[in-house]
């Protein structure tokens, strides 16, 4: 059996054209654009040696930046997941005029440049803005604050949370739900015990994707956070700051820490997504 399939494979490889040229193009672009840049980054960081690396990546300002980045991203991802579940639920389960419009609006953060999002959010939430004029007197500072960072991160990560849960909700098996209702469960009980466990992996994946998106975000945050060191400075902003001061070693070290966080999150997301795919089968 093995022999036949490998012969078939070998035959197919020699029948279908283009292996050589596509391999050449792929290798060239992949090496030039991904492998070399990331390797240079890693090697430059490694050349620092452990003590210097730690000194660069673990300064008080850097630690504050990680805290702001992680803290705001986790809160934003959590808010996105909860709001995303609600919106996905309404889009899948309830028919109402304007449903298609609502569904299309969900994609806006994916297409809108982050700089535009940042500009518009900061304009909205300052004292004279459309929303700020109500919120600032109440003490809610949306602009130049940690809250502003969270708001803008929710904006960019919401579509991820919604679009992961939506298909799972759509393909949910109604039979167990109906059985539960017929057996006397209230709607809340049905949701908590039948529906939510079935969609939880997807909700979790949505959270992880939202978190990954939020961690790397730069463009929108620079407009709204005020970029105050130790208070509202996120890690990418600190990296740029160091770069502009030509402190390449420090910038590289912080970048590697950020990269490590992102890549481990990627691994987690991939594992979760495989689990969701398996459950859906």
């Amino acid at each position, binding site marked *: 059996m093995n022999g036949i399939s490998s012969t078939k494979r070998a035959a*197919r*490889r020699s*029948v*279908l*054209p*283009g*292996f050589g040229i*596509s*391999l050449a*193009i*792929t290798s060239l672009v*992949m090496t030039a*654009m*991904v492998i070399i*840049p990331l390797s*240079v*980054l890693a090697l430059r960081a490694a050349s620092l040696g452990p003590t210097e690396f730690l000194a660069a990546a673990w300064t008080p300002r850097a630690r504050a930046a990680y805290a702001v980045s992680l803290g705001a991203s986790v809160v934003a991802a959590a808010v996105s997941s909860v709001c995303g579940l*609600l*919106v996905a639920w*309404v*889009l*899948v*389960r*309830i028919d109402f005029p*304007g449903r298609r419009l*609502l569904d*299309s*609006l969900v*994609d*806006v*953060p*994916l*297409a*809108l*440049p*982050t*700089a*535009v999002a940042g*500009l*518009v959010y900061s*304009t909205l939430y300052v004292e004279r803005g*459309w929303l700020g004029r109500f919120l600032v007197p109440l003490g809610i500072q949306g602009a130049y604050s940690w809250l502003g960072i969270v708001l803008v991160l*929710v*904006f960019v990560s*919401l579509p991820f949370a919604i679009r992961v849960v939506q298909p799972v909700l759509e393909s949910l098996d109604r039979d167990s739900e109906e059985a539960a209702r017929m057996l006397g469960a209230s709607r809340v009980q049905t949701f908590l015990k039948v529906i939510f466990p079935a969609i939880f992996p997807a909700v979790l994946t949505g959270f992880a994707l939202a978190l990954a998106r939020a*961690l*790397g*975000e*730069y*463009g929108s945050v620079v*407009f709204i956070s005020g970029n105050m060191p130790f208070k509202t400075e996120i890690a*990418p902003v600190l990296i*740029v700051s160091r*770069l502009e001061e030509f402190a*390449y070693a420090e*910038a590289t070290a912080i*970048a590697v820490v*950020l*990269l490590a966080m*992102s890549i481990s999150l990627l691994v987690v997301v991939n594992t979760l997504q495989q689990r969701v795919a398996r459950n859906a089968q």
Partner: protein
Amino acid sequence: MPKPTITTANPLTERLLIAAAVGIVGLLIAVPLASVFAEAFAEGPAAWWRALAHDPDTRHAIWLSLTVAPLAVAINTVFGIATAWLVSRFRFPGRSLLITLCDIPFSVSPVVAGLALVLIFGRQGLLGPTLASLGWKVIFSWPGLVLATTFVTLPLVVRELIPVMEAIGPEEELAAVSLGASGWQVFTRVTLPNIRWALLHGVVLANARAMGEFGAVYVVSGHIAGVTDTMPLRVEKLFQEYRTPASMAVASVLAGLALVTLVAKFVIERQLEAEARELEAARSLPDTIDSSTQASIP
């Protein structure tokens, strides 16, 4: 997307949920989107036009975005087609690694990507001295912008094409080869027509991302007004200079482009869904004629 079936839910709960969902999307997405256009045209269309056309640095930013983004998208389209062909039609060691590597730009912060490019092409970078002696500028110049934009949009076309090419399968291409078609003929006459909607979808998304890219471009450009500022960078510079109406004008162009992207995406997705349904229907047809049909053939 499928129409919801009639539920037996409490209408009051339903109305509350709808209100909450509309409130969330409205507050987070619709209001900001509307305010871009409202603020951009607050002083009238003439002022809007003046802000865009009469400022040489803004004109240059628009021109720069319109040249850098399509170039990056073109590179990624070639790369995407080549990689999708390679991955979906052949099996070779390192194939899954390649697929994983394609996803990396998604999980790397754009600023980190820009930093990596600076470490290679910057004055103090790996190739810095070599480039200086050749008189070539990459960082603080448009080649750097193209590289940065290409990096962040790398996965977008590939990820569209791989599932489609795997779903369609190589049968038609194999048939073409066995009938004597050359490689180029197979590609243009068989593959390309099959993947055109997925390709268009990827290109549209990649273009939107490329035109909107901020972080990576910010780092490699040195944000020199009139030389290396793309449109998003111009928005930021005008904002820093407290010229918010002008900033909003440029932002409104980008927002308009985003809306066009979404409409195009919607139209293309309808085509993709129709094609997927056709594929399903074709797959479920029996391969052999059944006995009753056979009997009726004279």
